[in-house]
């Protein structure tokens, strides 16, 4: 699966280049091919972190904590990709780097929540797994709000109904990139969770050593 993800990423630039120029925005809209999948993966990662937090807190599965950490870090990564590529695109197409509309504001807010989570895990000391899970749950509660908000409030950001109406030449590279990003997300999630599992094993091994 790692190989497939990497291969798709290698092919992506060619597909993007072959997509036609859009009338109003020209060349720069091609940022969209990476911006939108990044945004989707950001939301998926946030949701994963929330679900795993729920399992940790309410279903009492201690292993879920490894998945929360992994998903939260990936939420920070993909959130950063989205929040950097978006303004770079906006500068050309809207003329401004940033607007305080519903979707951008709530995306930034959820991103900050997961940055806070990462800080909490690094510097909070013992017991911060439960605290972080509570934080991540609150973060996940905001995810549907982000997705729906643009449909309820006036905003510059293209509404979610744009996607199904895309012409085929744009649709192919887009869905290709979505698949590539999804694979990347799954691969990174599993690798990062594996790191946590391995670290737990190291601790267990050290403890076993001490007892001998």
């Amino acid at each position, binding site marked *: 699966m790692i190989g497939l993800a990497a291969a798709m990423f290698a092919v992506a*630039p060619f597909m993007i280049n072959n997509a036609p120029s859009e*009338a109003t925005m020209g060349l720069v809209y091609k940022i969209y091919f990476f911006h939108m999948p990044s945004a989707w993966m950001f939301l998926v990662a946030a949701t994963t972190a929330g679900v795993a937090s729920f399992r940790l807190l309410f279903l009492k599965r201690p292993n879920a904590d490894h998945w929360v950490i992994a998903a939260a870090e990936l939420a920070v990564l993909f959130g950063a990709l989205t929040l950097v590529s978006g303004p770079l695109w906006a500068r*050309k197409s809207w003329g401004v780097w940033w607007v305080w509309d519903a979707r951008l504001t709530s995306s930034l807010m959820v991103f900050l929540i997961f940055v806070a989570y990462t800080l909490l895990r690094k510097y909070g000391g013992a017991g911060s797994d439960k605290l972080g899970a509570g934080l991540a749950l609150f973060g996940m509660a905001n995810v549907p709000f982000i997705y729906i908000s643009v449909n309820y409030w006036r905003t510059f950001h293209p509404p979610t109904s744009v996607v199904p109406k895309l012409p085929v030449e744009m649709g192919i590279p887009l869905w290709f990139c979505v698949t590539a990003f999804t694979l990347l997300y799954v*691969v990174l999630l599993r*690798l990062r969770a594996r*790191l946590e599992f391995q670290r737990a094993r190291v601790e267990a091994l050290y403890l076993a050593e001490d007892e001998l």
Partner: protein
Amino acid sequence: MRLRMFLLVMVLAGAWPVRAMQQPPQPPKDFVPVDESAPGEQIPAMPLIGGAYGFIWVAVFGYVWSLGRKLQKVDAEITELERRKK
């Protein structure tokens, strides 16, 4: 081992966008070509696109690389500890 292959392909994949972007864009079929408007009016798109894609590649690659290093370190530690246990 698989991780190293992944990293290698990512590095190679990172080289493509640079070359791909230098090829001239295909003439669009149904859309009005934008390059006809006066170049002085527009904010140049290339630095923005280059910045966006460049950032994404660097960020993803950097994360994968640091993750790979941490995984290697932890795996080495585990093999060492298991060896000591025996």
